[in-house]
């Protein structure tokens, strides 16, 4: 146990072992897959048409926003060039499906159907359609565990959207709650403030929504106030996730930093 926890040597072994055990996960997932495919087949024509119309409308709205986005991106690039700051890289992403939820009570993890065959890597950021979900643990060949942001061993660097104050959000082991530590009493922070990733640790890209502040305890007797937030991603009902790749440079940099730390 200690050997696994305090050293990195078991990472390679873990890849192989995860690969060996992955058929069990696929087997366990099979009934649900079957039920879903049957449910899809027996859907009525009307409900499908309704859904189709809804999706069309949704796509139209999204496309309209996307047109603006292209313009904004162009503008942003120009402004950045004027400021001589480094341009932002377009990142690649891949859809993954949640196969199983880890039954370990003391750790918040889900298993996705992507692995080293899809070139995923350890520490890769994972989001869903609403916000940040977590990061990948050691990948197996075809399955990988995702450590959720609510896990008590997880911490993620964030920024408060309204004020830009930096902080670190830690998991609490409670699926609907994360905690900000070391927030001075004087900090301008209110219930309802949105938290976004700050991109400072090089692991999570900048600007993705993480949570919404739900509770602030300002006890003057203590050095810092305690701030609780609710993750915006629906961590208890995850189905489809997005794995993000930073630009190639970013990954190289991240790896380098890690090596320096280990060395």
């Amino acid at each position: 146990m200690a050997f696994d926890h305090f050293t990195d040597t078991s990472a390679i072994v873990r890849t192989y072992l995860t690969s060996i055990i992955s058929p069990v996960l696929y087997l366990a997932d099979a009934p649900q897959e079957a039920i879903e495919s049957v449910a899809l087949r027996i859907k009525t024509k009307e409900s499908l048409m309704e859904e189709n119309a809804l999706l069309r409308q949704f796509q139209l709205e999204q496309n309209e926003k996307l047109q603006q986005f292209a313009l904004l991106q162009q503008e942003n690039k120009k402004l950045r060039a004027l400021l001589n700051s480094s341009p932002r890289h377009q990142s690649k992403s891949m859809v993954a499906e949640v196969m199983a939820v880890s039954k370990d009570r003391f750790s918040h993890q889900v298993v996705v159907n992507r692995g080293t065959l899809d070139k995923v890597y350890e520490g890769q950021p994972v989001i869903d359609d609403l916000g940040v979900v977590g990061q990948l643990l050691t990948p197996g060949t075809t399955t990988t565990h995702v450590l959720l942001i609510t896990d008590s061993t997880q911490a993620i660097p964030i920024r408060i959207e309204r004020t830009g104050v930096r902080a670190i959000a830690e998991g609490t082991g409670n699926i609907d709650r994360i905690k900000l530590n070391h927030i001075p009493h004087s900090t301008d922070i209110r219930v309802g403030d949105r938290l976004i990733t700050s991109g400072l640790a090089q692991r999570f890209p900048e600007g993705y929504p993480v949570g919404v502040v739900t509770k602030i305890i300002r006890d003057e007797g203590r050095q810092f106030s305690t701030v609780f937030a609710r993750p915006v991603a629906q961590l208890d009902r995850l189905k489809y996730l997005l794995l993000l790749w930073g630009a190639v440079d970013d990954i190289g940099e991240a790896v380098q930093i890690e090596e320096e730390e280990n060395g």
Partner: protein
Amino acid sequence: MGDNTGLRSNWYIFLTILSALVLSMMPVPIQLELFRPDWPLLVVLYWCLALPNRVNIGVAWLTGFAMDIMMGSVFGVYAISFTITSVFCLSNYQTIRNFSVWQQSLLIAVLLCLYHLLVFWFSRFFATIHFIPNYLWPAMTGALCWPWVFWLLRKLRRQFSIQ
């Protein structure tokens, strides 16, 4: 011939443990999640009682290790909990066999509680976690399921003459 039977028995035992592992990972509604019995442990404990010559602490350790990999926990947490729990069954299997099924399920409840406490205790080394009594629900449902696990596996054992 005898060797052949041994191989066949091992194969059947492997299959029952494998299906228990699949059952333990199968998605269920979140309300039922809290009450999910520990199928792999129940199956391993049954084989420890029925065929201690075939299923020993090694098998218990391996099953626990498989759980570790599936759970993504720190390696060894489940493995050692499985091992310690099964040792109690293995060292007293002759006594426990003479109990009625309901007496056995009481004993299983105690063993399952021990198992969950062990898992909690070992996990606690690596993360700040707190114990809530709700964690012990699977011990109760597991004990309630024990008679059926027992009868089903006994039927399998006799039908396919696993020995």
